[in-house]
């Protein structure tokens, strides 16, 4: 096409038109339309705002975020950071955000794992396995998530009480108070070891990068895993040992009404996690299946012809191509899972919606309460979108 540009007649710039005051002028029409639509939208919004401020005044409802520094007085069952009812509303809301993150992150990881298994099972040559996977996907997708959550919660409540708890092994108890696991008594040394692990992660990434650069330069593949092992395990263990290797088990035991000590997974959290993971995994399974099917058969055959082993074909040839199809819909599933975690309010897991909702009830400040919920979710959604877009761009086919 660009060849024709050599023709001087076609190099002429389009005639520069002034804005005519005529309905026939497209640009004028565009401006009129935009002014009109914007005007309508702005006037509707200002009407609503003026109504709202009038109503707030007439009904003597307090406004502003001043309540955030007041004492909350609401009890919260599980919290990542320390919290007591004497803390402020702001801290209660932070607890809620962290609880939402706790369910979303774990949920995304497990749903990806289970979803991939389901997707692969649906492609299995074993008829029974693929049928069961297909039935699972169909049934789970066709039932409302809320119903599933209520169902799981009802099932978990059917577990025996703490005194008759199932006790499969030392220190592990399963009852309607949740799953109790042994844990270590957390000390500073453990926090430092955790930091060491994060540092090891960064070092591993850097090491892998330089190894790849060297491979690009001389073509010789280098092993990354021994160094990675050192960074990821050796470093934290060394830090831990240097700080005196504290190791005191925290074994749960039945004392009084409940189990004391140990790590608790509450039934509310577990039911929510189970519901979200089962539900999202059904969708992810379909995405993974269509992603794998989308890779042309010729790719397998060509790779086999090169004599590559099957695992390597999957890892280096098929998966990278399938990922390109998988990533965009997967992003929206991750977003869905995060947003769906708001259903926690129905089964009593105290996430940001539940806590903000209680706050709203106690203070009567509906606008602020809902604004908090929306702001939190918008932040989550935007962060996940940005991250996945970045990742998608990284693995996208570089077209030359």
């Amino acid at each position, binding site marked *: 096409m660009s060849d024709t540009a050599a023709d001087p007649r076609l190099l002429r710039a389009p005639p520069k038109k002034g804005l005519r005051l005529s309905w026939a002028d497209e640009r004028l029409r*565009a401006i009129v339309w935009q002014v009109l639509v914007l005007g309508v939208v702005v006037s509707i919004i200002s009407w609503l705002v003026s109504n709202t401020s009038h109503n707030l005044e007439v009904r003597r409802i307090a406004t502003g975020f001043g309540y955030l520094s007041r004492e909350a007085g609401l009890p919260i069952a599980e919290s990542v950071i320390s919290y007591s009812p004497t803390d402020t509303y702001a801290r209660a809301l932070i607890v809620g955000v962290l609880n939402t993150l706790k369910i979303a992150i774990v949920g995304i990881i497990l749903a990806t794992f289970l979803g991939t298994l389901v997707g692969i099972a649906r492609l299995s040559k074993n008829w029974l396995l693929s049928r069961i996977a297909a039935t699972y996907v169909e049934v789970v*997708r066709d039932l409302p998530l*809320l119903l599933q959550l209520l*169902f799981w919660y*009802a099932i978990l409540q*059917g577990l025996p009480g703490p005194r008759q708890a199932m006790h499969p092994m030392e220190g592990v108890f399963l009852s309607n108070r949740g799953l109790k696991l042994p844990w270590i008594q957390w000390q500073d040394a453990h926090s430092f070891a955790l930091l060491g692990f994060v540092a090891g992660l960064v070092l591993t990434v850097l090491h892998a990068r330089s190894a790849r650069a060297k491979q690009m330069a001389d073509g010789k593949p280098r092993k990354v895993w021994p160094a990675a092992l050192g960074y990821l395990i050796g470093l934290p263990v060394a830090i831990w040992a240097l700080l005196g290797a504290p190791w005191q088990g925290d074994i749960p035991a039945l004392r009084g009404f409940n189990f004391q000590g140990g790590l608790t997974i509450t039934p509310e959290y577990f039911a929510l996690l189970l519901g979200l993971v089962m539900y999202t995994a059904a969708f992810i399974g379909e995405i993974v299946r269509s992603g794998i099917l989308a890779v042309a058969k010729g790719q397998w055959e060509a790779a086999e012809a090169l004599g590559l082993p099957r695992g390597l074909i999957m890892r280096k040839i098929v998966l990278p191509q399938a990922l390109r199809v998988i990533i965009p819909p997967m992003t929206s599933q991750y977003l869905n899972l995060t947003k769906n975690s708001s259903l926690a309010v129905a089964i009593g897991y105290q996430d940001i919606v539940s806590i903000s909702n209680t706050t709203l009830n106690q203070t009567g400040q*509906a606008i602020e309460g809902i604004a908090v919920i929306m702001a939190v979710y918008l932040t989550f959604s935007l962060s996940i979108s940005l991250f996945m877009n970045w990742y998608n761009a990284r693995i996208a086919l570089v077209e030359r």
Partner: protein
Amino acid sequence: MADITAEAAPRGHQPATAAPRRPPVLAVGPLAWVRANLFSSWLSTAVTLALGYLLVRWAVGFVDWAFVNAIWSVPSVNGTAQTQACRALQGSGACWAVVTEKHRFILFGTYPYEQHWRPAICIVLFIGLYIVSAMRRFWRKELALVWLGTLAVIGVLMWGGILGMPYVPQERWGGLVITLILSTFGIAFAFPLSILVALGRRSRMPAIKMLCVLYVELIRGVPLISLLFMASVMFPLFLPEGMNIDKLLRAQIAIILFAAAYLAEVVRGGLQALPKGQYEAADALGLSYWQKTGFIILPQALRLVIPPLVNTFIGFFKDTSLVLIIGIFDLLTAGKTAIVEPAWQGFGIEVYVTAGLIYFIFCFAMSRYSQNLEAELNRHRVR
């Protein structure tokens, strides 16, 4: 597969002399199928056996619970049901009596008892509307008129107040019909809105484009529950003093706004899938923007988006259950309220299973339909 090849083998051309030989049992026929699909390797055999065992065990347990040990009705004394028999089961069997007793409440909520035929007809009308909309030979513009007409008839039936039917305010509506109303009216109003938003998002006018992007991303970034809360507690503050919209309608508006944002993305996908030549050809004909959109672009784009549209609809159908949280009596809320009565407390699983079955029937039918449709449309395109 082996069966089909055996069936399809030509029969008439076999020479009479050669006696037909049966194929080896392990190469074709059901046995061969079993071997190839269930026991092809050690791993496969192990998986089959393990799954088969679990499946049989679960199925036996389920049949025991749901049928063998189940109680289907209980006697009632002075209007209070005597549920001791159910309690005595201790969970070893289902107490379907709760459904027998409460089925009309679960289906119709607090709608006046003698007038239940009205929501019942509405449910039938809704199903009829879905079936008509599903048939491709009705995919014409007149379908929109059918929708308008049916929805109007449903409105008249539900409200009443004319033709000798007593007026029934919205607070009394409930049960399955609320689920159908919220989802169907939701999509019926969201669809036109979503087309406008999708067109706006592809518009060359920056202000309109920005507005549409803002709307879609904002709504898609927050959970439906926050919109419903907004409709429930914030919306009344937005209106001038004295003006007031019913709770059901507020929830309906929230669902419409929510649905429109998602549908707009579906429609935008359809618009983007159209080859650019279509736009250029329409421009070349000198058609105006609205002529181009109405006669060339939309008829083709909307056809493409029908399967994802059905899937989105299934999503909304399920999501309407969230109105539980703001206290509207849809199918799920009615089911949960049915077990508030002390006599029936604790029979949640039975009610959930029943409500789940109703949801499943609707969603499964729609999702099957959408799968078939997709395959059909794709076949057409490939050819």
